[in-house]
């Protein structure tokens, strides 16, 4: 494939988005989002429900036209060159089903016939460990099997870019692990992947880089580790010698979230949490035992970053 885009630095960018904006009525679903994705990268888009993740990838795949901003997919415009782009972009849609009596093998053969250089449908099914359901009608599949068929359809056209939206929602833990392994294999084949997810463990495990979107805005853009570290969150778990109410705990410097499970109290926040808590509680005559402290993970960063934008903006984005 010739690189028609001819990026000036000679570094191939698969997708570039500049100042993307999309409005539905009075709601600004995506507001001035910019990022670029390198070829071969597994790029995660995370954010709360309704953050604008799906709208963003729908604009990339050409299913929706943006109101303003520029999108380039391997040097092409998803709107102007939509038919050329569909040739090498595989899309797995959230909540899309097949006709109930269509058989898995038939669906794969059909989609393979749509593309110029498809993969062998049998091999795709084999690699997803669902070769056995080839003669099964879609309506007789389990949730996990349906999800894998949906992924298979996104891959059978041999795409250079695969867009996977809410890939493992509704899957049992084993099926999720299997799907993750499959994404890893796509990485080995050099396929660029955009993964939309609201599972932080999935983003942490699979993605090279993440874009965190909240209320249509890009809040963070970095590796999962860097985003987790930058949020500067810590987590402390302990057992108090006598009951302590939430109000007292929230009054301690740096405390942001208090959770309880059986005897344990888990506190998430910033700064030297353990020392602050020990001092504050000791002053009230409460001892702490079974203390465990660790750095925050992506989950904590997610909660902090999405809450921050919510409180600084004070409501939905206005024009």
């Amino acid at each position, binding site marked *: 494939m010739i690189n028609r885009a001819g990026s000036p630095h000679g570094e191939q960018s698969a997708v570039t988005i500049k100042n993307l904006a999309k409005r539905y009525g009075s709601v600004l679903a995506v507001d001035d989002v910019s990022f670029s994705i390198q070829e071969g990268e597994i790029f995660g888009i995370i954010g709360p429900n309704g953050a604008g993740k799906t709208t963003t990838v729908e604009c990339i*795949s050409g*299913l929706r036209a943006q109101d303003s901003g520029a999108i380039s997919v391997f040097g092409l415009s998803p709107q102007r060159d939509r038919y050329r782009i569909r040739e090498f972009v*595989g899309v797995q*849609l959230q909540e*899309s*089903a*097949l*006709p109930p009596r269509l058989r898995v093998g038939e669906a794969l053969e*059909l989609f393979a016939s*749509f593309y110029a250089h498809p993969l062998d449908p049998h091999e795709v099914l084999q690699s997803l460990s669902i070769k056995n359901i080839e003669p099964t009608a879609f309506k007789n599949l389990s949730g996990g099997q349906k999800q894998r068929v949906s992924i298979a359809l996104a891959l059978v056209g041999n795409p250079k870019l695969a867009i996977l939206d809410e890939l493992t929602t509704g899957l049992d833990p084993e099926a999720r692990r299997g799907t993750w392994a499959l994404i890893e294999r796509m990485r080995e084949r050099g396929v660029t992947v955009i993964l939309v997810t609201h599972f932080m463990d999935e983003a942490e495990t699979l993605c090279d880089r993440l874009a965190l979107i909240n209320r249509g805005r890009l809040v963070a853009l970095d590796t999962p580790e860097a985003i987790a570290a930058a949020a500067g969150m810590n987590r402390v778990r302990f057992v108090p010698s006598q009951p302590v109410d939430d109000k007292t705990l929230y009054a301690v410097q740096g405390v942001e979230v208090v959770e309880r499970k059986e005897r344990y109290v888990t506190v998430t926040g910033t700064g030297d949490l353990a020392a602050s808590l020990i001092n504050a509680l000791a002053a009230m005559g409460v001892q702490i035992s079974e203390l465990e402290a660790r750095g925050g993970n992506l989950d904590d960063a997610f909660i902090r970053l999405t809450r921050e934008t919510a409180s600084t903006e004070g409501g939905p984005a206005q024009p």
Partner: protein
Amino acid sequence: MTRSMGGERSHRSLAQFLALLKVQAKLSLREPYALGPGIGIPVILLVVFGFISKNVPGNVGNSGLTVIDLYVPTIMVISFIVIANSLPSTLVRDREIGWLRRISTTPVHPSRLLGAQLIVDLVLAAAAVVIILVGGTAIFGARLTVSIPFFILSLALAIAVIFSLGLVVVALVRTQVQSQFVGGVLIFALFFLSGLWVQPVQVSGPLQVVMWYSPSGAAVRALLDSVLNSRPPVLTLVTLAGYTLVFAFVAIRYFRWE
């Protein structure tokens, strides 16, 4: 280079369409919407009216025609209505479950799935016509002298008007539940107007006019004239063409792929 690329593109385009045609044909055989009713209902009606005709021979409404003579065109139009009713059943569902949207992410536009489905349904309608014509004449003794050119023209217009009305339903309704309701009401009205319960020749006055100039009644009239070796009235053919144009316009104007 342009020519070879163009050739390759049209070759691929044909291969894509044939693959869609194959899948839509298989689904039509598996799903109960078109094949069963589209062939089954005309066969049942043919038997019922065939036996009535054997037992009550004669001259219905002073038309000089027997029951089976009159019902051959009506049963044909009823088979088109039943087949057209499967369009919403399959296409509204395919849209509602996101299948058409899923197709639209590929290099193939979902309009080609619609095209493939229409071809499958046309083949089914043609099969129904052959069964009704052969069964009506050979088994139940309808005395027909088919005027081939007018018959082909009338068939084409009858199928066009009924199928385009089916596509209007596909375009306007949003859910499968709505399409079942709308389809049910429309089927009943179209059956009546095509003369299933009472033939237009048996009624008079405004009701006969309404029947003759309704979409299904006009289709019956055009077919009736052309199977009796006469020319359908120009006004009937124009009526059918007019309905088809209006229905096609509405269907195209309001069609949604997702």
